[in-house]
């Protein structure tokens, strides 16, 4: 027994006694009285009174202390302390059995045979769907976003820009959005933002616009035209029901809540898109970002854009169109004519696959391990080729990254297929 003053010559004796026989004095106690050095009875008393030493803490206490320390660190989040806090977040993830995989594999540019060489290949990274609650309520989602920022900041070379795919907040509160903005400030590369329904329906985007500007915009980069849409416009379901802004937000925040309306891009944005694209020739590569998939997958979870057909019609004349979307929190691939669709991973949690209507090109990711809070989550990067088509990299935390290559969607799935899952969704 390691009690009292141990000397070099002292031997450690381990005695196990489980049987719990009822006696006036335990036999072990006699042994300890006879052989243990120091006041072993005081140790027993301290143990029983839980005042022994700080290592003897309940899981709950440890968790609470860890969380409090984490949030204390977040209070002053400049560049230096960011590194410290995010390292701690990674450390906690590793300690809880989550192995941090080497961030990104650098993606080799595949042979661009037959591609028009109008633009210079480039690469950007993405983070999406962090669903932050305000500080103090939930640290897990905050840790995950910090981890994603850390992943992307450690990319070498740095991507041309980082795209955020929407749903930064969970309930659209200004405290949540401020918190997210504070974390995202630490992204080293230029940051482009998109809005999601969780950011919008408390104040109809007021706070989000204050922080990040208008949700619909476009720009040119190395010969590619990039467009960001707000695809989460819902028809007013709340006025007739007399809902408060909180009730409206709560309704939209439920993926399986059937009271809300389907997502749309809506007439004004479609008109804007037509005007925006008018000055580009048909062979300009186009990349469109939308929070919801710009096609109709599963209406009950709003894996759906109700006016997708109209938006697709506007994009039809272009030779190469790529749509990158959030909202679905999973590996998701589709192609409709000239338009190649890729989903983004969430940092917060993975969604199950829709029970029907899955696109043929989608290779599902293995069912996430429920015992690992980061499994099935992650971030990623997009390698844009000279012809405007992309390799889409899913940087899955706790798994090998998966790449959905340009060759895969260009060949309608006959070339370059990634491995299929052996643990399908239920």
């Amino acid at each position, binding site marked *: 027994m390691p009690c009292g003053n141990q000397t070099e010559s002292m031997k450690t004796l381990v005695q196990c006694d489980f049987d719990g026989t009822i006696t006036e004095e335990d036999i072990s106690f006699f042994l300890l009285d006879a052989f243990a050095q120091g006041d072993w009875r005081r140790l027993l008393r301290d143990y029983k009174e839980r005042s022994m030493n700080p290592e003897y803490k309940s899981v709950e206490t440890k*968790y609470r202390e860890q969380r409090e320390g984490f949030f204390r660190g977040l209070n002053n989040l400049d560049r230096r302390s960011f590194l410290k806090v995010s390292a701690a977040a990674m450390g906690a993830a590793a300690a809880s059995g989550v192995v941090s995989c080497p961030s990104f594999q650098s993606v080799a540019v595949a042979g661009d045979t037959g591609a028009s060489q109008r633009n210079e290949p480039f690469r950007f990274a993405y983070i999406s769907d962090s669903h932050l*609650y305000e500080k103090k*309520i*939930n*640290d*897990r989602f905050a840790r995950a976003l910090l981890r994603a920022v850390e992943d992307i900041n450690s990319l070498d070379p740095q991507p041309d820009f980082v795209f955020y795919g929407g749903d930064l907040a*969970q309930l659209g509160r200004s405290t949540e959005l401020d918190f997210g903005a504070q974390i995202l400030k630490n992204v080293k590369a230029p940051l482009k933002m998109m809005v999601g329904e969780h950011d919008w329906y408390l104040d109809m985007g007021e706070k989000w616009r204050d922080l990040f500007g208008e949700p619909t915009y476009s720009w040119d980069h190395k010969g590619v035209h990039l467009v960001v849409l707000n695809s989460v416009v819902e028809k007013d379901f709340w006025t007739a029901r007399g809902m408060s802004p909180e009730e409206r937000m709560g*309704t939209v925040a*439920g*993926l*399986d*809540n*059937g*009271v809300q309306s389907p997502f749309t891009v809506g007439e004004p944005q479609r008109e804007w898109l037509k005007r925006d694209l008018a000055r580009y020739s048909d062979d300009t590569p186009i990349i469109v970002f939308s929070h919801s998939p710009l096609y109709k997958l599963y209406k*009950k*979870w709003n894996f759906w854009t109700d006016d997708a057909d109209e938006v697709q019609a506007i994009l039809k004349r272009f030779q190469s169109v790529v749509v990158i979307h959030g909202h679905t929190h999973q590996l998701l691939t589709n192609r409709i004519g000239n338009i190649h669709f890729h989903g983004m991973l969430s940092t917060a*949690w*993975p*969604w*199950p696959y829709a*029970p029907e209507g899955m696109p043929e090109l989608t290779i599902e990711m293995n*069912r996430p*391990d*429920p*015992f690992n*809070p980061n499994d099935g989550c992650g971030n990623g990067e997009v390698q844009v080729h000279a012809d405007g088509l992309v390799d889409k990299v899913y940087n899955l935390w706790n798994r090998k990254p998966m790449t959905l290559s340009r060759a895969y969607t260009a060949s309608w799935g006959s070339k370059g297929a990634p491995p299929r899952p052996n*643990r399908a*969704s*239920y």
Partner: protein
Amino acid sequence: MCNISTVAHVRFVLLCGACALMTIALAGAGCSREEVEVTTCDGTGKAMVARDDIGQDLADTLMAQWRRDHPDAHWVEQEKERHELKPPADNSDLLAGGQADGHTYGQHDKRDLLLWARETEKLVVEGSRIFHSADLLGSTVAVSCDMCHPHASNTHPETYPKFQTQLGRVALLRDMIHWCIDNPVRGEHLDPDGPAMRALEAYIMAQRSGTPMNYGKH
């Protein structure tokens, strides 16, 4: 003013929506215009009205007041509108004839079937409410079941019991519910036989209606 000392109690049962009972007390004589005090049976709603108003208008007024005071009165319908549920099995084949004569066991009418369906569904609907609410579930980090399991997908109750490798033992659905409560939800365990656990299990199993049982499936 009317003197209400000579009140004659007349009870009417008004079937309006939620079946609130109302007691209508007739105010006594001595008034130039006879008035009636109408009270809902739970005593929360009261109104004095001219006797001529008795009728549907009166009932509607009180019912509207009662509904304002009880916004959750239609919780079953409201929850079903929010979160689609699979309906319980159709038992209408039991109404058909066959060997019914002289045999009391198995004699059921439409009313029985309706009762079974409604009562069963009510437990499932209560489960749906808990499943979709971090507060009802008691989460300390605002996490509810539907955040990972919309419409209870990926809960696969038909695969239990099975050896849960991560736990090192055979798990039932309720063990996994408790696992979720411990970990992502960070709440307190439910009483295994308590109403919340019963309702959650009911909802999760109801959502997999039609899926073959396949215990031990990984």
